[in-house]
Structures are given as C-alpha cells and as structure tokens.
C-alpha cells in the first residue's frame, strides 16, 4: 500500500513512542505513571480534534462531548458487564453513533462552519448540565448509578476477557500508550488514503470538491464520526487515569483546553497537538503547585501568543523552519555546482532554477 510507504515520519515517531512506553516505568515514578494514563487519554482527545479540525476542516468546539460520552459509556458498560474488554468497544461505538446522528443533521442540513462550532459546543454544555442533574438513586443505567456531579467511579482495566485479573498501573500505562500509538498511526494512515485526501480537499475548498463529484456531506460525516470514536477512546483512558468520571469532562474549560492544545501544537499535524497536550498538562500542574502566577492567565497568554505569533502552531512552524533551511542549503549547493560548471552565467541559472 502506497500510504504505508509514505509514512516514514509517522513510523519514526511511533518508534519513539514505543521506546518511551518501554522506558517509562523504569525511569518514572509510580505516581507519574498513574497520572500519565489520564494525560494520554487527553492527548488522544487532542489527536481526534487534530484529525477533525486540522484535516477535516470541521471546527468542532465540542469534541469533548464524544470524549465524555466515551468515558461515561465505558464506565456504565464496564459496571454492567463486570469487565472492561467489551466496554472499550461499546464506549467507542456510543461516541461514534452519537456523532453520526448529530453530524447527519449538521452536515446534511448544510450548517455553516460557525454554527457548527456553536452547535457542537452547545451540545456539550447541554450534556454537562443534564448529567449534573442525575444525582438521585432513580438515575441508573443497569447497575450503574449516574451519580450527578459526583460522577461514577471507573472500574479498572482487566486482562482481555478475564474480569477478575486487574491490570497494574504500569500495565495500564502500556495499554494507554499502545492505544495512543495505534490511534496516531491510524490517523496518519487515514489522512493519506483517498478518503483522507478528499477530506483535506474539502477543507481547502468544499465547492470545488463538490464540483469534482464528491458528496462532501458524506466525507465530513465520515471523518467527524471517526474522530468521535477516537475521542471516545481518549475518554476511556482519561477516566481510568483519574479512576472516576464526572460531568467535568463536558465542561467549558475542558472544551477550551482541547482547542488550545490543537492551536498550540499546530493544525494540520497530528503529533503537534499530542505533544502540546503533554507539555501544557505538565505546565499547568507545575503552575498549580505555586501561587505567583495564575494558571488560567498563563494559559490565556500562551493562547494569545500562539494565535498572534505562531498561528500555524509549534510543529508546522518548526518543520517550515527546517524546510526553508534545507531549501537554502540545497540552493547554495546548487549555486556552487553551477559556479563550478559555468561561472559566467550563475545568476541567470539560479533564478530559473529557483522556480522549481
């Protein structure tokens, strides 16, 4: 398959991910390993928005709706099934199904980008206030009490289809990292397939894609739904990491943070938002342990700096820099070669070659 061969950078990053996974438990403290599961969950959420917004061009301000639904669906299913294996699948399916229904109305109704952002955010906030109101004993799904604003405690991961054998924190870390790496490689492959390329084309110019006989509604619905399933996967590891799911997964700050991760990491890349999630998470917790600077103020400042100063985000900015450097180097090398060959017409030759 052509796509897999084009993914050199992806494989390299995946190898780094695997090395980090293997080395992690022996170099990091147990406490860090435990909290890492939730950060990994959040980074999968960022990855899903990177796919939907960065590549699909769908400005989804409520990606956390699917993240939260995934988390709740996992917990409820795991409690009812008495095991986590099928619950993972259920969680992703619930998130995807919800997105498919919402997306159907939004895309087939040809709702404009701005309204889409508003609608998705509103849906998230509606879920937030609905779930918060489920405190009584009458709010239960099967054996799972929804628990209102206190949420539900999350059953731990167990060995595949052996509900009595729970995973140790290191093992949860391995599984979470594996999920992140697989999700990342999958997204990277997806954006290189015909489907993914059409999604990117639609991001660039939806009218043109229509005139090339692509049913753009279907493609947008497709990438939106896939993104939701991935966000749901993130929700699973997040709630396992904090060992609890609360309505806060649907809260406005969580939605805003997700958007910040993607803006800082860079739209149009997949690894950028993942790394930004890790970096900003640890920055936030470092800030939280001191009292000089207000955390939100710092985050706000970072966002403003990025929107104004590095609008493409960190990773694209760095790769642009490397590319222009490489380009200049190549140009200089070419100049030298030409000088050697025909010293008199150097200037002329380089200007025409520059058009390449």
């Amino acid at each position, binding site marked *: 398959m*052509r796509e897999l061969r084009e993914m050199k950078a992806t494989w390299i990053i995946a190898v780094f991910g695997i090395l980090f996974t293997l080395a992690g438990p022996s170099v990091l403290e147990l406490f860090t390993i435990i909290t890492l599961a939730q950060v990994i969950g959040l980074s999968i959420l960022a990855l899903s928005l990177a796919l939907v917004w960065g590549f699909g061009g769908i400005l989804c301000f409520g990606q956390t709706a699917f993240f939260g639904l995934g988390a709740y669906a996992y917990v409820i299913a795991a409690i009812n099934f008495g095991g986590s294996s099928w619950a993972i699948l259920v969680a992703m399916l619930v998130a995807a199904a919800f997105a498919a229904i919402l997306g159907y109305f939004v895309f087939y109704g040809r709702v404009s980008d701005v309204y889409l952002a508003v609608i998705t955010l509103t849906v998230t906030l509606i879920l937030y206030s609905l779930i918060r109101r489920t405190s009584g004993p009458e709010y239960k799904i099967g054996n799972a009490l929804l628990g209102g604003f206190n949420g539900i405690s999350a059953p731990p991961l167990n060995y595949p289809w052996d509900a009595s054998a729970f995973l140790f924190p290191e093992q949860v870390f391995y599984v979470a990292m594996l999920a992140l790496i697989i999700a990342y490689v999958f997204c990277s492959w997806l954006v290189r397939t*015909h489907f993914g*390329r*059409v999604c*990117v*084309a639609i*991001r*660039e*110019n939806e*009218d*043109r*894609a*229509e*005139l*090339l*006989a*692509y*049913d*753009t509604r279907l493609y947008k619905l497709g990438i939106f739904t896939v993104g939701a399933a991935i966000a749901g996967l993130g929700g699973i590891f997040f709630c396992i990491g904090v060992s609890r799911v609360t309505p806060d997964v649907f809260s406005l700050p969580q939605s805003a943070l997700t958007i910040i991760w993607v803006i800082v990491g860079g739209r149009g890349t997949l690894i950028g938002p993942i790394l930004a999630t890790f970096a900003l998470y640890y920055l936030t917790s470092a800030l939280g342990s001191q009292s000089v600077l207000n955390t939100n103020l710092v985050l706000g400042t970072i966002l403003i700096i990025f929107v104004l100063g590095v609008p493409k985000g960190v990773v694209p900015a760095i790769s642009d820099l490397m590319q222009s450097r490489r380009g200049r180097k190549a140009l200089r090398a070419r100049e030298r070669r030409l000088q050697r060959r025909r010293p008199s017409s150097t200037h002329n030759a380089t200007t025409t070659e520059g*058009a*390449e």
Partner: protein
Amino acid sequence: MKRKAHTVLETRGLSMHFGGVHAVDRVDFTLRENELRCLIGPNGAGKSTFFKCLTGQLNPTAGDVVIRDVHVAGREPHEVASLGVGIKTQVPNVFDGLTVEENIWTAARRWHNAKRAQTLTSDAIERLKLGDIRSTLVGNLAHGQRQWVELGMVIAAEPWLVLLDEPTAGMTHEETARTADLIREINHSATIIVVEHDMQFVRSISQHVTLFHEGAIMMEGTMEEISSDPRAREVYLGSKA
C-alpha cells in the same frame, strides 16, 4: 453517413430570479453530442448564472435542465458532476493548500483507481506543461497558472461534458492560444460549452455561438452571422468597439 448527433443537454423554460433581477429568464437551450458551443454576451447577461443552474450550484426558480435524460434542476453539484460533467467556474476554484499534483490527482481519483489516477495526473501535468510547478502549492501560483491547474482538474477526470466559464480570463495572448488548442483537443472526446469574452478566441474555436442578453438567448448561429446582425452588434460587439 454520420448519424445526426443526439441532444445531450437541454433546458426548458429555465429561469433564475434574484428578487426582482431576472438573471436567467425562460431559456430554452439545446446542446448536441460533440458540439463545441460558445456562450457570449455582455457582462451581466446571465451566462454564469445559467451555468450555475446547469451545474447544481444554483437551484433554478423555474424550468428544467436535462442532461442525458436525467433531470438535474435543483440537484446537488456533486450529483450533476457524477454524471460525468467537468466544470470550471468563472472565479478560479482550486485547492489552495494542496500542490498542483494533488489538485489534479483529487479530480482523477474520483473516477479511477490509484494507479490509473496517477497516470492521468501525470498526463494532465505534461499536457498543460505544469511539470516545473507540480509540487508547488496552488495558493502560491499566479492567476493564469491557477486557471491551468483548474483546466488540468477538468481533463484529468475525463468528463464527457465540459462546462468552462471564462477559461482564459487573466491569461496572456500566448496562454489563450494554448487554451484554444487544448479545448479543441478535449472536444475530440467531449461535448463542450465555453463562456468567453475574447472574440478572437471564440472565432478560433467555435462553429456555433449562443448570444445571451438580459437573461435570455438573443441569437444563435455562427460567429459570422452574429457579427453581421445589427442588433447583436449593438448589444455586444458594438459595446466593445
């Protein structure tokens, strides 16, 4: 004897009104297979609006559009394009963030498997002499080059019906001449409608011309017939002189 070519596109009573503006008004238009038809007319005559009704970009106020026995008025643009219709709009309409090659590949891949799409893409790039800029982002190209990329997208999809709205706008003389050659070439395998301003260009490519005026077809015939008609001269040619 060649059998008489049959109708591949027809409009009946096609109207597009914007409030009080009758941009297209009860147009009956017929196009036969393998024709190369030019639409001419002064600015604001309704040519682009007429085009958009054919392509599904606009939902006509009244009337019908039939393409190869399919009623398409009010259908989505992708449904019309799916019939095998290649479209170039008046304003350059490309994927700015993609390279020249990716733009054209996206068009070809809709109809063909990956391998064939790559071949068609390379062919189109060669035919349009875009080789030097194949890896350049289309957003960084000059207006004329973007027009070529759009033409490349049209031919790479191998449509049987081609609708071109002012394909030579912003092109140099030389580029216009090349476009004329290209259009004649496409005409070997496709039926074409071209909206054009440049009289010389129209003369060089078309036997049959439709003159639009105030949303209606004022006259149809050869360029000679139109340029010798006093009324048509006044509407169009006169206004240019």
